[in-house]
């Protein structure tokens, strides 16, 4: 890691408490990470480990209880035009056509839609000709591709993806993983990708951050040195399988420790 360069995104000791009716929830505990410009980073962890909280804070949607998040050296306190987010289950607005869904960010910013860019992206993800369709007329995979187009249409430098393919079937998921890798190789966006699938994280990432459950802590970081582009077959390669097993073990190690401590 080149420590001299200023990271694209820096998370410094991020902690977050929620006040809930049943008491205080400690969602995130002193989490730190540096993401360099153009890197693809995955965060994995069990459900409820604060992954989404972390990502929403990066997007400026949530305030942290303590610590800070820096984008190009500037603290992130509110949504930035440099950041776009891809949500779980596509998050399309069902009352808008695909075209209108993709134009939403431009409407909000009172800008003319970047027609050429949008058309190019639609072509790229294989959705050209579907502009007039409504979300309910599209498959889950198509909807998620549309939401990727929506996020990239505003040309962000940082793309945050919150378990985007969790609801898709295995085949569609493979297809989407390939697509996102290709798009990343073409555009060299910085991507932070959250998932609970370890193989998905190893397939996509330059580096995998493993989180432990509540409160969400960084438990380990793995560098993924598999050369790119990575074809789907790489998932059967011994080194890939080894990495997945290693990460899995680092999560499962925690489990038996808890009852002993209690």
């Amino acid at each position: 890691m080149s420590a001299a360069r200023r990271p694209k995104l820096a998370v410094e000791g991020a902690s977050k408490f929620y006040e809930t009716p049943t008491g205080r929830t400690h969602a995130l505990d002193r989490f730190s990470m540096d993401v360099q410009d153009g890197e693809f980073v995955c965060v994995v962890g069990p459900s409820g480990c604060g992954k989404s909280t972390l990502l929403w804070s990066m997007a400026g949607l949530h305030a942290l209880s303590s610590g800070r998040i820096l984008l190009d050296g500037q603290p992130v306190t509110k949504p930035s035009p440099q950041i776009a987010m891809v949500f779980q289950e596509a998050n399309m607005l069902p009352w808008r056509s695909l075209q209108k869904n993709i134009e939403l960010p431009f409407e909000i910013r009172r800008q003319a839609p970047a027609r050429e860019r949008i058309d190019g992206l639609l072509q790229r993800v294989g959705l050209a000709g579907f502009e007039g369709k409504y979300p309910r007329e599209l498959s889950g995979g198509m909807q998620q591709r549309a939401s990727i187009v929506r996020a990239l249409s505003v040309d962000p430098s940082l793309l945050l993806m919150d378990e985007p393919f969790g609801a898709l079937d295995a085949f569609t998921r493979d297809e989407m993983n390939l697509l996102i890798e290709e798009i990343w190789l073409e555009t060299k966006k910085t991507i932070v990708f959250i998932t609970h699938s370890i193989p998905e994280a190893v397939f996509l990432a330059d580096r995998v951050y493993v989180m432990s459950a509540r409160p969400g802590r960084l438990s380990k970081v793995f560098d993924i040195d598999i050369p790119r582009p990575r074809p789907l077959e790489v998932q059967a390669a011994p080194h890939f399988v080894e990495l997945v097993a290693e990460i899995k073990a680092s999560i499962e190690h925690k489990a038996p420790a808890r009852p002993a401590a209690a």
Partner: protein
Amino acid sequence: MASVDRQLADNIPSFDKHEDGQAVGVSNWSGVAGQLGLIKSGREWALIAFVALALIGGMELLLRLYEVPTYIMPTPSLIAAALVRDFPLLAPHVGHTLVELLTGFAIGATVGFVLAALVTQFPLLERIIAPYILLLVTTPMLALVPLLILKLGFGYSPRIIAVALASGPMVMINSATGFRRTDLAKIALARSFGASTLQIFMKIRIPMAMPMVIVGLMVGSIFGLLTAVGAEMVGGSFGLGNRLTYYSSLIQMPQFFACIVLLAVIGISIYVFFYWLGKKYAGWES
């Protein structure tokens, strides 16, 4: 970090629990709108027309066969004749009833919609005013008409007020149900692109509430029609409700039923209009 959205700041973004609005919403839109527009072939049309003709013809036949006096139940042909012959006399009354209905409904629906939009943003305010809205919904506003007439005379105003009071709360409770359906992920989506609270309201909350708002408008306008006709019966000298009491006191039953046919036409038109509106603006939900 005060700039973080109030709507998001205290909520845990948990998608696993699936707490999006759909679960909260009541509306099965198609349940309200029934079977309209589902007729497919000419054959179905023919069958529907045949049944209608058989019903009306059968009624005509039976009434003639048993020589039922006109003052008890006029035959369909007599009603139709009265409708055609006296239409010039009845038309102004249709106009009066429509003026009361449309003016009162416009006022009631606007106030109901705006109140629902405001109140649902502040749960405490909602809890404070909920009992009064419930009172307005459950008490027949017709009961106020004698009082209103006493204060305001026999003109349009007491009727318009009664219609507004009857339709407004209906629009409000249904719209409020719509506005309560908050989908955190959709709000976060808009927010992540820098949307203001007003933009979130206009682009996310209102479209999401639309199916329930339209249900409210439909129910409210039907309640408005009921109240308009009832208020006309209580006092004054014009409107279809007034004509009903007038013709029944003269035992002119064909004209009486002609008024009922006209009221039915108004009622069905309201229904069809909102069905169309629902298809157009809330069709995404069904």
